[in-house]
């Protein structure tokens, strides 16, 4: 298994991340937001020299370095002469540094990188490749690897069709806890792309999407189960699709990241599934989902036609196993809470 592991972006973090015995195939980090932003929050804004130093450090330890520039919205800047020159110059520097791969979401960048540079081109999860047709388009533009949209992580017919339609590599993101069919997905990533990219910087009141994202799950915890994460134990079910997996979470502490690395490397985790999920991290203090209690659920999802109102499996499962933290550290299942006298 090739495991791509998030890295917060500074040298001290990288040294710590690679100091242990964990089997890390590659690390990935954001680049300099002055050129191309990213679709997620970043903890660091490494300059070119920083990236070079860290790339050399990773290579010395036999670990590959990937730089993620997966802005889902450039606001058209890349299509201006100035924008094109600036971004092309930056790609050129990254190429000179010797990074192994570069992840982008913008189709134009896929083609630009393919024509002018030798780096492995990875199509980001934020390109939302969820069908064989989209995969073919991106391969046609020059993609070497595609990170498949997790929305199809439990749709094996789609995954197999994507695999059969392209010859490029596929990568699966295992621990994204985003809402299944999230209505905010595009808007939220576009917002992040502007907030974490070249100016003008936004003076935002609140991250509306994140509020809604949490609120929807708190009010309807079956959404936690519906999210298309892949349990460490279920990795084996995906090995006929790919041998390359990615852990999300480049704003987490190394302790959290390494806990994930161990869980997915060992294909075993006896604890709260919420500990492993990247996106709704705040909710791990509210919900306890015993990972071992999810054994066998994938068999149901393999047959699922994703009409939740008719099926109800995730709802029943959530009521049975999702526990809500309560006063004094006690926990109760959703069923018990719903039966509480108000």
């Amino acid at each position: 298994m090739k495991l791509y592991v998030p890295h917060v972006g500074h040298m001290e973090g990288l040294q710590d991340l690679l100091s242990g015995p964990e089997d890390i195939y590659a690390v990935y980090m954001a680049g300099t937001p002055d050129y191309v932003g990213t679709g997620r929050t970043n903890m660091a804004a490494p300059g070119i020299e920083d990236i070079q130093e860290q790339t050399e450090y990773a290579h010395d330890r036999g670990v590959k370095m990937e730089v993620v520039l997966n802005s889902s919205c450039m606001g058209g800047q890349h299509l201006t002469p100035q924008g094109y020159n600036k971004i092309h110059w930056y790609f050129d520097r990254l190429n000179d540094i010797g990074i192994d791969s570069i992840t982008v979401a913008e189709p134009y960048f896929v083609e630009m990188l393919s024509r002018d540079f030798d780096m492995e081109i990875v199509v980001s999860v934020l390109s939302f490749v969820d069908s064989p047709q989209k995969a073919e388009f991106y391969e046609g533009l020059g993609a070497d690897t595609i990170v498949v949209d997790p929305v199809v992580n439990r749709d094996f017919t789609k995954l197999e069709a994507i695999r059969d339609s392209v010859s490029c590599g596929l990568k699966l993101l295992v621990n994204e806890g985003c809402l299944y069919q999230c209505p905010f997905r595009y808007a939220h990533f576009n917002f992040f792309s502007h907030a974490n990219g070249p100016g003008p910087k936004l003076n935002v009141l609140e991250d509306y999407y994140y509020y809604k994202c949490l609120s929807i799950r708190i009010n309807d915890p079956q959404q936690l189960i519906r999210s298309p994460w892949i349990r460490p134990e279920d990795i084996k079910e995906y090995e006929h699709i790919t041998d390359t997996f990615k852990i999300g979470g480049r704003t987490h502490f190394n302790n959290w990241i390494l806990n994930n690395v161990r869980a997915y490397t060992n294909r075993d985790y006896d604890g709260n599934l919420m500990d492993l999920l990247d996106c709704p991290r705040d909710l791990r203090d509210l919900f306890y989902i015993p990972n071992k209690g999810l054994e066998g659920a994938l068999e149901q999802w393999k047959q699922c036609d994703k009409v939740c109102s008719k099926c109800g499996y995730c709802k029943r499962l959530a009521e049975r196993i999702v526990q809500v933290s309560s006063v004094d550290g006690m926990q109760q299942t959703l069923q018990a809470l719903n039966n509480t006298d108000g």
Partner: protein
Amino acid sequence: MTVIEKLANNRRTLENRLQKLLARPVFLIEADVFALPCGCCGITINTRGLQVDDLEIFEEHIKEYLKEASEEMEIEPSFLFARLIPGTSEIASLNSRILCNRCYMDFSRGSGKSPRPDIYILELDRRE
């Protein structure tokens, strides 16, 4: 009991009461005691999963809970309010604040519950 022990206990207790009241999960993601340079001070309890509808239906209950939480922290519950995300059904925080004179003028102008789109007043003791 230290201030932080009181605060932690307060957060847990209020979360538990709200969950029981609404019979579903509610998450109080952070509780803070604050002092502002203008002279205002108080507590802010950041919420997730609490909706404006909940407040409208259970206003008296929630107000009472917040009042008790405030008193527990020895903060006079003279001004209790919820901060909303404007244009949405989301409540961002529950607050008890002892207002400085300047902010009192801002909040007390008018007689409605919402002097600003993001403010929902639960209680405001009017001054002479």
